[in-house]
């Protein structure tokens, strides 16, 4: 899957959790889920579950801990898709 396509899907997944709508308008690979979008850290586990469902992958705990930005998420998704 293309990076652009993954980012598009991520944007849709993340939308309901976003608390900073201004930052969401500039959603891109450098966007930080907590620092920029002000997503409640408790909701990150929900986003991981949504990502798993959308991309049909399983994200292990180590990867989960490193998923801070959109770019991190794209890398993890690509890796898991290649493994599969």
């Amino acid at each position, binding site marked *: 899957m293309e990076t652009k396509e993954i980012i598009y899907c991520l944007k849709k997944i993340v939308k309901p959790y976003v608390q900073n709508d201004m930052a969401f308008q500039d959603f891109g690979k450098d966007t930080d889920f907590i620092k920029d979008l002000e997503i409640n850290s408790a909701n990150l*586990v929900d986003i991981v579950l949504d990502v798993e469902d959308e991309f049909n992958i399983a994200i292990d705990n180590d990867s989960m801990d490193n998923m801070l930005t959109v770019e991190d998420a794209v890398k993890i998704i690509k890796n898991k898709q290649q493994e599969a």
Partner: protein
Amino acid sequence: MNKRIVITGMGVAAPNGVGLAAFSEALKNGKSGIKFIPELERLKFRCQIAGQPEIPEEMLKEYFTDLELRGLNSSGIVYGIISGVDAWRDAGLPVGPEAETDWDSGIIFGTGILGVDKFREAIHLIDDKNTRRLGSTSVIQTMASGISAYLNSKLACGNQVTTNSSACTTGTEAILMAADRIRAGKAKRILAGSCSDSGPYIWGGFDAMRILPHKYNDDPEAGSRPMSESAAGFVPGSGAGALVVEDLDSALARGAKIYAEILGGHINSGGQRNGGSMTAPNSEGVKRCIENAIFDAGVRPEEIDCINGHLTATAMDATEVKNWSEALELKGKDFPYINSLKSLTGHCLSAAGSVESVASVLQISEDYIFGNINSNDLHPEIKELASREKVPQKSLFREVNKVAKASFGFGDVNAVVIFSKFR
């Protein structure tokens, strides 16, 4: 008791009406909220009727954000939020992101058990070795205090925010706990109330105890029969009620509307002795609770216009009326009017005390005594204590100044509160 305590806002999600206006209309017209529940038939319950509030999808969106609605599977939270937010708004207090932390406002909102459907979801995932799939809302929807926590995400109270639990007295206890805290000068206003989930996982245990009626599955509205000779058990219910309990000075300073005054009340336990048990009250405890409430309120028994009893529609109804009669030393024509909301809603369990307190206060603020449907065959022992006209079958429209509201719960716990017209 030098501080006067009043009620400045109310909200309700009851089986026979959601919102104050719909609920009051239902009371006046004797509208039942008890229905046949196909799910209970499928699960082979003996009792397949119940009372549960009807909440349309669009209504949920008025109270919850899209994010909150994702994975929301706790009916108690739904009912509690609707009633609590309504009450707070009704009192003219701020709700939502614009509300700032208010250190003088608190929440005491009780429940018996919260989010059983959500808990069931979690149990299945855990047993499937899939704990990581629980997501972030499993805890907050199933912790007992989840209801006060959810409410506070909208109300921003900075005083005590807690959840009490004392079986079917929970809601009445919450009101008295709120009044005590305000009387002590520790808070100016408290949202007091309670909620109870709907569904088979709440009601199943009672069905197993064979204390629910099983002969009315074809005639649900006739199933809940408090004070009747044919009373055959309580119809399970659910919902939530909420009251803003406030210091009179604060209410007057805000120019708030005042529904009624809380003159006083009492909470006790019969100690599970002398006839009291896990499931039945010690009559001495009940009578002391009534007497102490009347004393605390500073009223004479004959001033009570109406008793809103616990009266669940079991063999204990006659005992309860006897306890009232002995505690108040009134009988026959002198006995106050008496009614039970449970004929219209079923027994809302941990929500009963608050939903019924909202009904009690509405009787004072709108001057009526709602009727007891299904009491046509009044129990002979009750007939000896209270004249037939004191157990009205249809609503009476007359001045109502003082109502005594009682709730009794499993574990032999009692609560009685005395509401009065505010003058």
